[in-house]
């Protein structure tokens, strides 16, 4: 027992020293720059080192597969089957011509007509545009996260060791660091905004509120090791406007709000989120709705309009897709925010999935699991483009305007512009869409029939 004593105190001392060092590092390299909005560039160096390691790891896997003479599984992003671009009419004409030799203008039904729809149906079952967008994008090179690897069996000993080291670093060093930062950021936000809330309204309050918000969001950005590149910052949203962006995860808010001072819109939640929301609204006029009010579209529109009409008020931040998409495409924008009549500032956000997939599949993961996954990834790397402001032209309606904004965002971010509704993740297709194809076919068969019987 006496022999253990000096050893014991040695361990305790070591522990004490390492914790102190950790906290000093935290303070000096992370929190202080966050407060002043400067950066040492540590994250960029980190990113470059990681990229080199990933390339090496991918090469090793390829080499391992070559040695065993197996093909590697490479996920194919654009779809797995070839869909012919021929139209309904062309195909049915072709089939009929090859069969009975009758032209299409004899209005009859042929047994072979069923074939076209059957094949189209099977094609969609094998591979459709929409369902693909709702699962995480597949990577081409391996980023040392086992959650993204499909070629597990080709990893050599060296790679396994590297992966093990990666796990150790991510879970034992990065994770506690990030949790400490997140904790600091959130508590500073809550206390800071509450304190600022007690000040009388005026320029001082606004100034302090802005900087408290910015500082805390910057700390949160560092808590996720988010490496963000902002483009075209001269187009940043101004007061009295609406900022719309594509939605991939709840982190989008932190990313945008750390570079600008926005009024947020959303539903009041319970728990920790609710505490944060209630504190934030004391310092700055965010627009929070009760759960019951969210369903009432007119009420929502009214409050937003009131906010926007006051030109001194902050720009509102809205995500019109209504749900998280997996960042390979942009889905239908809900027209509500485009009816208000304010200037719209579109923003495109594109994540680089190599370092950590930011997509929140809310049907697969809860919020806590999701945050844990984020904090144990290497980093979140993304690009933000501020697009020039757009206003609704006199001859277009809200839906057309929404689509115009959506195309601009999709084009800038290199995302696929889809007509489909993000709400399809949970709901079924509206009936209006269903009828189009059927109408076309029946017109082919019957339309002429009616002419004939009339003549």
């Amino acid at each position: 027992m006496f022999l253990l004593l000096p050893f014991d105190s040695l361990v305790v001392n070591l522990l004490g020293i390492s914790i102190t060092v950790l906290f000093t590092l935290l303070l000096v390299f992370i929190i202080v720059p966050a407060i002043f909005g400067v950066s040492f560039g540590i994250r960029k160096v980190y990113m470059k080192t990681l990229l080199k390691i990933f390339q090496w790891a991918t090469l090793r896997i390829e080499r391992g597969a070559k040695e065993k003479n197996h093909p590697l599984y490479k996920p194919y992003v654009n779809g797995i089957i070839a869909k012919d671009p021929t139209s309904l009419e062309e195909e049915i004409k072709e089939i009929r011509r090859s069969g009975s030799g009758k032209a299409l203008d004899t209005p009859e039904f042929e047994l072979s007509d069923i074939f076209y729809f059957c094949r189209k149906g099977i094609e969609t079952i094998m591979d459709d545009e929409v369902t693909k967008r709702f699962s995480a994008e597949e990577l081409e090179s391996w980023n040392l996260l086992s959650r993204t690897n499909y070629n597990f069996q080709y990893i050599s000993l060296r790679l396994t060791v590297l992966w093990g080291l990666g796990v150790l670093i991510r879970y034992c060093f990065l994770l506690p660091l990030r949790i400490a930062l997140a904790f600091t950021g959130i508590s500073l936000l809550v206390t800071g905004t509450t304190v600022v809330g007690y000040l009388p309204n005026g320029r001082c309050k606004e100034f302090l509120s802005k900087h408290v918000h910015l500082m805390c969001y910057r700390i949160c950005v560092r808590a996720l090791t988010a490496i963000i590149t902002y483009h075209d910052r001269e187009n940043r949203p101004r007061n009295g406007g609406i900022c719309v962006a594509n939605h991939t995860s709840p982190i989008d808010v932190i990313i945008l709000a750390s570079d600008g001072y926005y009024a947020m819109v959303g539903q009041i939640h319970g728990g920790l989120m609710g505490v944060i929301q209630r504190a934030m609204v004391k310092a700055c006029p965010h627009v929070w709705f009760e759960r019951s009010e969210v369903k009432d579209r007119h009420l929502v529109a009214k409050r937003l309009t009131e906010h926007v009409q006051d030109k001194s008020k902050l720009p509102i931040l809205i995500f019109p897709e209504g749900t998280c998409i997996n960042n390979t495409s942009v889905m239908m924008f809900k027209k509500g925010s485009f009816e208000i009549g304010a200037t719209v500032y579109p923003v495109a956000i594109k994540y680089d999935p190599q370092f950590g997939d930011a997509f929140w599949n809310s049907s697969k993961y809860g919020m806590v699991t999701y945050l844990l996954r984020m904090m144990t990834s290497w980093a979140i790397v993304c690009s933000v483009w501020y697009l020039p402001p757009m206003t609704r032209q006199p001859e277009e309606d809200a839906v057309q305007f929404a689509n115009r904004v959506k195309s601009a965002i999709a084009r800038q971010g290199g995302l696929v512009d889809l007509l489909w509704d993000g709400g399809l993740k949970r709901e079924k297709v509206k009936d209006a869409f269903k009828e189009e194809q059927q109408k076309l076919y029946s017109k082919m068969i019957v339309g002429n029939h009616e002419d004939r019987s009339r003549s």
Partner: protein
Amino acid sequence: LPRAQGAHPPSPLSFPPTVTSEQIEHLHRRFKQLSRDQLTIRKENFDSIPDLEFNPIRGKIVHAFFDKRNLRQESDGLADEINFEDFLTIMSYFRPIEMNMDEEQLDRFRKEKLKFLFHMYDSDHDGKITLQEYRNVVEELLSGNPHLEKESARSIADGAMMEAASICVGQMGPDQVYEGITFEDFLKMWQGIDIETKMHVRFLNMETIAHCY
């Protein structure tokens, strides 16, 4: 071992290779997506495909997946759920032609595909397409048009059925009743139509990392 192919689309004379292990992997992942990571799929799982709603004969297509005749099972009727093997069995009806098929294989191939279509028409599994079943199919195909009266759809179906009867049985006496299209008659009607080259779904050529032999 699959050959690594170039990225240009297959010309009419170059036939794609047999189903590779990659394609099976892809189908497996698709299966898992549809089944939400369960081992079997039920009819409800097909509701999650929005594009399928476009299709007027959606019901019949989904039905075909659970039809025991298509699943090559001895018994008759409908299965409640299918596993991945069954899913592949149905997908195999849409396999493209293989280069090395001889006449007999081609004929069998064609008959299989036509049998699949026949089962779609013959909903009561009695081996014949009756007038009522025919009418059902036509009505479903034309169901999207709200302006179309039921009578028009019905008369179109009847006209087509009579045409079918004349092809299969020739001239009928006034007392003869045409019971329905049997499979042999069905085959007659598809003569000349190259089902085997049209009824397939082509996989896009996937690049495998080149490996040396």
